[in-house]
């Protein structure tokens, strides 16, 4: 039954796409995030829905789209360079089989992220992509949030739609993505045009924000807690009443404390004591091993090169019998521990050149969004007011993702690559308007610096000029 519903939905969007082929791009976004073919049980698992959607999206763009305003930008070039470099490192990969498995999804995610900005040529498409991203993630987040509220949860215990701990269906990754998309979801309450600002939109977004904040709590993902902290710090910049904001956040946090399970406190306590937890203590060992590995293989060891590591270290192991807990220090041998950080993931797999490209890709995105935010800040006209808050939301998404990425190997996370695609699309869309906007800013700055008498003289000059223009116009007619 569920399979039939998914197939009917996909068929419905494919049909709608005949009139607007851009919907096929959105269909691929939905399939790539939610993965209905992995949620279903029967027919849909046999269908190559992802391939069908990509073929439709690409074919529709090539054959039917106007392509007016499509540009190939520097950041797309960086992603292309990263894609080619990943392929090159694959040829000499230390573990060819597992490297090939990872390459199988990485190239698709990168290729789609390169292609995506070419299709983002209108304001409506920017919003449509942001909405599809948010709603696809929201479908997972709302379900997870409801389960947490109704009593499920715990590290590794929460049941997602898909139970293979991969992609977005991994607790820390979901927590990071959910928190990163909060500012984008909030954007729809004021500037949405597909669903206009309305109390129903605000209520849905409020519920979604609440569910997103519950994900790190319900999954007990420590990285998620850091992402919430990063979001709080970033929001300070856009808050007028900072003191009230900090006080409200404090009160909210304190109110939530009594409702948290004790297992949550125990797990969060290990953030500051990495020695007390295997997952956290091995991170430090893996990171130091990766630096060493990169000095021996500066061009990278190919995907999944972490499989080469092995550590022996002493760790406190707590054993409980009845009411007595004993702590013993034992030698623990660990092999093939994952990188637990995107920085070290790229360093170990693609070496220093790959890391440089990856950092440039994200750094440029943050810089571009900052420039757009500053340039369009204060624009009050309906067709311009949405730009600056959108840039701020996308910048926060990047920064929160980077905070989460410091502690997880999510360097090629498809949702975040789509966010990059959205950032490039926004930057590219605004290019033709930049000259006019800069002239407007320069004019308003000059007016601000003028004395009242200069302002009056300027107004008289402008009026005279306007009269002159109109008389010339009359003569010409």
């Amino acid at each position, binding site marked *: 039954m569920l399979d039939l519903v998914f197939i009917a939905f996909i068929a419905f969007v494919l049909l709608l796409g005949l009139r607007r082929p*851009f919907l096929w791009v*959105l269909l691929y976004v939905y399939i790539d995030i939610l993965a209905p073919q992995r949620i279903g049980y029967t027919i849909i698992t046999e269908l190559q829905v992802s391939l069908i959607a990509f073929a439709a999206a690409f074919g529709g763009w090539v054959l039917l789209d106007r392509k007016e305003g499509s540009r190939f930008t520097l950041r797309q070039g960086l992603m292309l360079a990263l894609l080619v470099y990943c392929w090159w490192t694959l040829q000499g990969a230390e573990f060819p089989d597992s490297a090939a498995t990872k390459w199988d999804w990485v190239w698709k995610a990168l290729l789609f992220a390169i292609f995506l900005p070419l299709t983002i040529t*209108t304001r*409506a498409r920017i919003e449509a992509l942001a909405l599809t991203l948010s709603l696809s993630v929201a479908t997972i987040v*709302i379900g997870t949030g409801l389960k947490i509220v109704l009593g499920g949860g715990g590290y590794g215990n929460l049941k997602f739609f898909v139970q293979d701990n991969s992609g977005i269906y991994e607790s820390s990754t979901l927590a990071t993505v959910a928190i990163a998309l909060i500012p984008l979801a909030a954007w729809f309450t004021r500037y949405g045009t597909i*669903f206009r600002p309305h109390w129903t939109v605000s209520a849905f977004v409020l519920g979604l924000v609440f569910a997103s904040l519950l994900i790190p709590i319900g999954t007990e993902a420590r990285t998620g807690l850091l992402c919430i902290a990063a979001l709080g710090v970033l929001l300070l910049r856009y808050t007028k009443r900072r003191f009230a904001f900090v006080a409200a956040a404090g009160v909210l946090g304190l109110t939530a404390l009594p409702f948290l399970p004790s297992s949550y406190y125990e797990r969060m306590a290990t953030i500051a004591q990495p020695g007390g937890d295997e997952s956290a203590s091995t991170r430090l060992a893996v990171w130091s091993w990766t630096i060493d590995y990169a000095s021996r293989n500066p061009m990278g060891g190919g995907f999944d090169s972490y499989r080469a590591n092995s550590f022996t270290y002493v760790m406190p192991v707590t054993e409980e019998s009845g009411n007595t807990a004993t702590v013993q220090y034992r030698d623990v041998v660990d092999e093939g521990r994952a990188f637990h950080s995107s920085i070290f993931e790229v360093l170990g797999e693609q070496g220093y050149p790959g890391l440089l490209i990856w950092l440039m890709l994200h750094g440029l995105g943050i810089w571009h969004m900052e420039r757009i935010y500053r340039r369009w800040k204060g624009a009050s006209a309906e067709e311009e007011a949405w730009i600056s808050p959108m840039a701020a939301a996308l910048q926060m998404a990047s920064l929160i993702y980077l905070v989460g990425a410091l502690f997880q190997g999510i360097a090629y996370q498809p949702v975040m690559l789509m966010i990059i695609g959205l950032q490039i699309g926004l930057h590219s*869309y605004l290019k033709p308007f930049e000259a006019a906007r800069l002239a407007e800013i320069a004019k308003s700055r000059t007016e601000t610096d003028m004395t009242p008498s200069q302002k009056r003289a300027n107004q008289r000059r402008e009026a005279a000029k306007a009269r002159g223009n109109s008389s010339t116009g009359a003569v010409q007619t």
Partner: protein
Amino acid sequence: MIDYISLALGHGLLAAAFLRLVMLDDLDVDPQVKAQKERARAERAAATNSGRASQKVRAQTAKAAAKAAAKAADQADADRSAS
């Protein structure tokens, strides 16, 4: 059950959004980009027209000046021959 509720909510909203997008002409042609292009075209045309107009004025002024100079020279010749 919870899974079905959230899947229904997410898919319902996505379907509503896609239906609205199908009806939206702005999805393929951005009104702002269109207006910007028209403005640029009008500015280019105005610049060309004013350029042509000023060229014409310059040519007419030069022609009139040459005519006046020739007339003055003829007048001077006539005066000389009369005296």
